[in-house]
Each structure stands twice: as structure tokens, then as C-alpha cells.
């Protein structure tokens, strides 16, 4: 299991910490004829933040619901927080995990604190008042504790839902598109909360179709489109899919770009992407950049910029999903 950073710190749960937090083995879920996801296998380590990416209808929510024992898989097996997934194990599994669903699902006629008290009872927590105060503090909502949920904005409701998911100190926390429909400020707040949880060593299974979110928060990501397309660290995926490149911009288009670029040792190929803008394929940008700069100066070009162009996870994602769509069309 590849994992960044120090060993995860446990916070509270007595669940076994050896092995994997999630083991998914050839899992398939069908609704009648419709396949929600098919033959999906992966593992998530304790303390890991695992991003589950995919377009609409890819099967993300269905996967979360399956691992949360709400839906029975059609075939395959899984282990959640150390317990084999089965109908009988439902209550034990549900005690160790929590899910923040796509929509917050708060009791709107109850206050924030009353909502949380209800769920503290459902988890049979001892010191309800203390626990509720702690999770409210964790999501910065202490001052809204006595507000009716109906009066809260979407972003605040999302935070209450997150607080609710934290009540039972979950071994695995499932977040199903935690920032969907939030404005940039509210999104940043949720990201900060997730980062804080990550730093505390909480295992998080995060579904999203926001690529920058996955890139920022996740140790590893899986890209799903009914079946699993790819899995790995975000930077790994980028490298696996794209050759590295250097982008050059000059004030005026080069008179003879071929003469400038083609003799260079570290440049494997080039193309003009716009007037005065060139993409150079390189194996090692650190070696190529100075060489390119010298050649440009020698050719008398006015260089505006010379940067390593980074493919974002979004490029990886679009590339993969497009490819997948093409394959299916054939």
C-alpha cells in the first residue's frame, strides 16, 4: 500500500489497525439489467484518503451504499473496517463507519444540536452533550447549535452532515461528493475540514468528480466508469499517461522552429499549439529547459516564457473517460 506521510494516528476507535480499512474484491452491483459497477477491486489502507472519481452514473454512490451495507452486492466480496461484508454483519459494520451522503438529509424542523443528539443516541454514545459539542467544534458550528436546520444555508447543512458523520469516530468515513453545489468559500472550508481529518489519520473514502479536489486531498485515486479504469497516486497517474513537456512562448512566431528545436539533445519532439507557442516533448524538463533557452536566444527569439507544462489530473481523467467512451462505442 502506498501511503504518503507519517504513520496514521488513530483517534478513538478500537477497530483492528492492521491490514486494510477496505478490501474490495471483484465486486459487481446490478439493478436488473443496469450495471451500476462491475468487477471492481481495490484496497484502501488505514489512514489513507482514497479518492473515487468518475463521471455521473459511474457507480460511485452505489459503491458507497454497498460498502455501507445499504445495498447487497450482486457478486464479489468486500471487507469493511475489518469485517466481511454480509447482511448479518450490517449492524457491526455500520457502527464502525459513517457516510456523509450526497444530500445532507437533516431533520429540518430540528435544531443542529437536536439532529446530532438523535444520531448520538443511534450510536449509543455515552456522553452525548460532550460528543455533540466536540463535533460541532470540529466543523466550526458551535455558534449555530441552536438554529433550526431549516434556516441554514446549503454549505452549513453540509457541515452539519459532516459533523453527524464524525459522531461515532468512524474507522472509515465515506464522503459522497461532499462539496457538490458549494461555492468556492464553502468548498474551501470543507476541504480544510477534510485535510484536518486526514492529518488526524482518519481513513476517508471520498467520491467526487472534482479533479482538483481529489488531487489536493487524496493520497491515491481510482477512476471509475462502471468498471475501474485506473488506480494510483495522482502524480503517478499523470506520469503514467502523459509524456512530460515544456512550453515555450515567444513574442513573435519563430521563423524556422524546426531549426531551433530539432537539433537539441533533450527534446524528443515538438508541435506548435498557437502562434508563437510551442509544446516540446522532453524526457527530463530540468535538462531540456536550459538547452532550449540557449537555442532560442541563439536564434534571436524574444522569449516570453519557458515553463514545464503540467498535466492536471483533469487531463488524465478526461483522457481516460473519453477513451473508455470510445471503446464502448466500438
Amino acid at each position, binding site marked *: 500500500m502506498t501511503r504518503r506521510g507519517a504513520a496514521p494516528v488513530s483517534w478513538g476507535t478500537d477497530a483492528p489497525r492492521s491490514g486494510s480499512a477496505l478490501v474490495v474484491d471483484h465486486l459487481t452491483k446490478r439493478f436488473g439489467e443496469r450495471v451500476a459497477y462491475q468487477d471492481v477491486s481495490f484496497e484502501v489502507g488505514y489512514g489513507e484518503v482514497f479518492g473515487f472519481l468518475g463521471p455521473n452514473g459511474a457507480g460511485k454512490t452505489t459503491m458507497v451504499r454497498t460498502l455501507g451495507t445499504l445495498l447487497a452486492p450482486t457478486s464479489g466480496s468486500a471487507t469493511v473496517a475489518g469485517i466481511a461484508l454480509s447482511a448479518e454483519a450490517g449492524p457491526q459494520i455500520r457502527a464502525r463507519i459513517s457516510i456523509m451522503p450526497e444530500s445532507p438529509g437533516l431533520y*429540518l424542523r430540528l435544531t443542529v444540536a437536536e439532529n446530532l443528539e438523535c444520531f448520538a443516541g443511534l450510536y*449509543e454514545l455515552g456522553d452525548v452533550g460532550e460528543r455533540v459539542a466536540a463535533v460541532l467544534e470540529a466543523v466550526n458550528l458551535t455558534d449555530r447549535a441552536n438554529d433550526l436546520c431549516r434556516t441554514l444555508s446549503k454549505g452549513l447543512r453540509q457541515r452539519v452532515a459532516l459533523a453527524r458523520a464524525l459522531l461515532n469516530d468512524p474507522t472509515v468515513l465515506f464522503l459522497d461528493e461532499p462539496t457538490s453545489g458549494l461555492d468556492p468559500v464553502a468548498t474551501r472550508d470543507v476541504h480544510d475540514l477534510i485535510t484536518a481529518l486526514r492529518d488526524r489519520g482518519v481513513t476517508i473514502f471520498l467520491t467526487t468528480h472534482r479533479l482538483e479536489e481529489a488531487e489536493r486531498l487524496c493520497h491515491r485515486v481510482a477512476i471509475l466508469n462502471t468498471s475501474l479504469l485506473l488506480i494510483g497516486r495522482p502524480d503517478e497517474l499523470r506520469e503514467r499517461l502523459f509524456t512530460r513537456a515544456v512550453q515555450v512562448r515567444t513574442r513573435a512566431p519563430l521563423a524556422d522552429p524546426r531549426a531551433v528545436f530539432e537539433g537539441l539533445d533533450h527534446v524528443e519532439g515538438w508541435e506548435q499549439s498557437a502562434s508563437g507557442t510551442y509544446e516540446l516533448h522532453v524526457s527530463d524538463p530540468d535538462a531540456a529547459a536550459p538547452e532550449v533557452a540557449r537555442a532560442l536566444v541563439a536564434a534571436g527569439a524574444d522569449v516570453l516564457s519557458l515553463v514545464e507544462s503540467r498535466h492536471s489530473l483533469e487531463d488524465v481523467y478526461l483522457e481516460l473517460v473519453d477513451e473508455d467512451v470510445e471503446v464502448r462505442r466500438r
Partner: protein
Amino acid sequence: MTFSWTRVGAIFRKELRDYRRNRFVIFTMSALPLLFIVMTMVQLFALKTSVSSARLNDRIGLSMLYLLIIPTMVPSALTAYSVVGEREQGTLEPVLITPISREEFLVAKALAAFTPTIIIAYALFGVFLSAAELFAHPAVVAAIFERSHVLIQLLFTPLLAGWAIWMGIAISARSTDVRAAQQLAIVASLPPLAVVALMSFNIIPASVPLAITLAAGLLVLDIYGWRAVAAVFDRERLISGRVADGRRGARAGR
């Protein structure tokens, strides 16, 4: 996992808090009982004591029947909403992903409908008896306490409520629409009331042994009713709207 009264209590308290702030529930719990107590009183005071004692008895039976509509209709309206309503609001999924078992969920929902119903129904019956005692003709009062009227009232109030509650929850767990669930639940709550009505009108001759037999029958249905309801309560179906493949008849998780 063992049955947890803590979890039952959590849902129960949540429901009561929700009722207090729900205009529809407040209306159901106040307007409906008010209407029927008024109708009962009108019946009571319109009674002519000159009629034969059998007629008098029928009339009293009829007026008290109105009072039994309360423990039938109020819990129907409440429980019909209980599952499908939460599902529509999106609040069911968060509850179902806690360790709560379906038995705990159902018992909590049932108690949350049963408790206010019983309090309201018995309180109104108390009002009815005191009003009769104070203002009605002595012959009418005597007729009320004669025969099995009071017994029927005391016995059948919780039993009818129990039936209405299980029917309401079962229908709610299988519905996709609150309104349809409510209409269906009201209809489904009526059969036992009809039997009581037949008895009140002396179409089936009312007697203490008969009343007790009927009550015992209802009691058995009420006690085992929750098992039948537990059988139709299916997490997978409630979340996805359908039964898991290859599991038709079996249940996907408790």
C-alpha cells in the same frame, strides 16, 4: 447486536420534537379529535330519554364510536408519513446507515405514534365522561355506564391504535408517495373499527365476552403485526426502490 432502547429512544424523541413543530401533525392531533368530540357531544345531548332503553343504548354506542375514530385516524396519518415521508425528505438514508436494526426503527416509529394517540384519546374520553356526568340526563349517564360501553372504549382505544399503526407503517414502507400512503393507510385502519361498530349497533350482539374475545384477537394481531411489518421493511428497497436481484423474498440486510 441486541435490541437497543437507547436507539429507540433517540428516534422517539426526535419524532416528538418534530411533531411539535409540524403544522400538519398539530392539525391532525388537534382538529380531528376536536371534531369528533364535538360530534360525540352533540349526539349525547340530542338524546331523547323517552326512547326505549335499547334505542338509547344504540345511540350511545354510536356517539362513542366517534371517539374510537380518533385512535384509528390519528396514528394512521402519523405512521403513513413515517417511512415514505422520511424517504422523500432524504432523512431515511442517514438513519439507515447507523447501527439501528429495523426492529428498533419500527418500534420507535410505532411508539412515537402510539403515545400521543393514547394520551389524546383517553383524555377526550375523560372529557366525554365528565361532560356526560355533569350535564347529561341521569338516564343517559346510567346507560353509558351500563353494559360494555366503557369497557369497549378503554379496551379498543389502544388496540385499534396498534392496528392502525402497523398498517400505516407497512404501507408507508412500501409506498413511493406520501399522499397515496396516507389515503391507503386510513382505509386499511378501518376494518377493526367496523367490527366494533357492528357491535356498538348491536348488529353483532354486544356482550362482555364478545368484546373481550375481539380485543384478544386484536391484541394478538397487534403483537405479531410488527413481525409482519419487519418482513416488508427492506433496507435495499427503501434506498434503491427495488429488491436486490436474486433476493426476492429474502431480505437484504437487517
